[in-house]
């Protein structure tokens, strides 16, 4: 009887032990999920395994949508992926210009369509995932992003929709002499006079699509900004190189902007604006001598005031 009672107690303890293990697993599972909700700094993801599944999107379909794939990871890998073999820009240009296809390379002063991108570094395997993270606003840790990523035009939202048309829909009556872009053009931070007083930011500043010229640029903070913040921009003077007929290797600059709130700056909301102005005269002369008819100051023609780059800084006590 006593032995039977012991046996029953042992069986019951085993049962309880099992439940405890199951509960522990459940608790760990939920704890792990909670951690995944937080936003982590940028991680360059390892190469995804091939799934062997066939995407639903059609060949030559430039715009990729989430419904093109049942497996969303595939979408993340494809959304920003350069599909340069499928752009068929020269075929489209031939149709647009109503000229034989073999005349198109000469029209663009290129040997082949591949030349458009041949000065750019190889596209990393996880390019689309990193670009997607940035474009969806989930991760603004831009410092680790290297030129293998930011020099690819497909890194920038709307390139496939807006940028490719300079080859697929050429208009010989016009030429693009000026234009630039910044990404992300608007950023936010919260500083505190009693805590973190410094900010660090990265902006990718690039030549506008279709631009054939060299544009000298000098980036400065507005005078109002300097009343409240010490700001350091690097580089602050640079030469934007052409994006047409091919992308050149200096068409994008990774601009780092560091700032520190001044001790007497009162708490409040501040808009820090940056402007493009003419480069110093010695740089202008140097570049004008080198590039002649193709050199222009970026600021003289088109100057995004309010602003090409804007930081919204909240300063707390």
């Amino acid at each position, binding site marked *: 009887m006593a032995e039977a009672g012991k046996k029953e107690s042992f069986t019951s303890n085993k049962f309880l032990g099992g439940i405890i293990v199951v509960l522990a697993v459940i608790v760990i599972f939920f704890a792990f999920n909670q951690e995944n909700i937080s936003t982590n700094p940028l991680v360059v993801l390892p190469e995804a395994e091939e799934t062997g599944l066939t995407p639903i999107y059609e060949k030559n379909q430039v715009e990729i949508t989430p419904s093109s794939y049942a497996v969303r990871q595939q979408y993340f890998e494809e959304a920003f992926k350069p599909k340069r073999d499928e752009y068929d820009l020269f075929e489209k240009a031939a149709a647009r210009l109503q000229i034989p296809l073999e005349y198109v390379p000469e029209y663009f002063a290129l040997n082949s369509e591949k030349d458009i991108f041949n000065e750019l570094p190889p596209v990393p395997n996880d390019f689309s995932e990193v670009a997607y993270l940035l474009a969806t606003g989930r991760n603004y840790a831009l410092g680790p992003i290297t030129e293998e990523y930011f020099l690819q035009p497909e890194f920038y939202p709307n390139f496939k929709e807006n940028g490719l048309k300079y080859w697929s829909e050429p208009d010989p009556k016009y030429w693009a002499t000026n234009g630039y872009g910044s990404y992300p053009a608007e950023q936010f931070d919260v500083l505190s006079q009693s805590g973190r007083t410094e900010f660090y930011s990265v902006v990718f500043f690039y030549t506008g699509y279709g631009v054939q010229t060299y544009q000298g640029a000098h980036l400065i903070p507005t005078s109002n900004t300097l009343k409240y913040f010490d700001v350091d921009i690097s580089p602050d003077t640079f030469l934007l190189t052409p994006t047409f007929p091919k992308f050149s290797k200096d068409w994008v600059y990774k601009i780092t902007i560091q700032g520190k709130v001044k001790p007497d700056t009162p708490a409040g909301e501040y808009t820090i604006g940056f402007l493009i102005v003419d480069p110093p005269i010695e740089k202008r002369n140097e570049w004008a001598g080198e590039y002649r008819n193709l050199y222009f100051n970026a600021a*003289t023609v088109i100057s995004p*005031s309010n602003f090409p780059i804007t930081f919204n800084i909240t300063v707390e006590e």
Partner: protein
Amino acid sequence: MNKNILIGLITVFFALMVYAAVENNTTMTWVVPSNVSHTLTYAGACSTSDFYFVEDQCTLDSDVDGNGSQCLPQTTSAGGTTCQDASTAAITITNNGNVPINVDGNFTADFAGVDVNIVLKVWMGTGAGCGTNGLGGYEQNCSVTAAGNPVTQTTCRNYNSTNEITAGRLVSALPTNDTNQMCFSGDFNGGMSQGSHAVTFMTSSPAS
């Protein structure tokens, strides 16, 4: 005793299930579109620096007395080749970013001396050029005067010695992946001396 522990654990288990149900969070993010990008194209051989109004090429009063109007932009200071006509706009701006933009224009410095008689008239192209004889939106007295009102295909904005450095709206809320043509006439309001009168016109494109 063991029964009580078992009941307690079962209670904890169901509590965790309820906890899991209410903590299945969705992070909602309001993202400000922030890829600001635009491209400016010129017709023919005109460019940022090659954009000339030559008095003896004007449609009205085409001589060299410092007085003329309806003058289309030329590709060289010698004149003879315009970069604007009924089927061609001198300048086209394209919004290649992902946020609508406004486009304003103004000169970078006051008109001084005889330059006070310079007048620039700007209007919007038709999408296929600048209207009849390239002067479709030309008005003798431009009717767009409020700083925030954009020009249209039939109404122009004057830049003269009274407002030359004030930003005046040329295009309102240009959508992404859209273009807007801009057309020009550089008029001479009398008293201009012979030679070159170079002034810098700046268009700016703040996000709308």
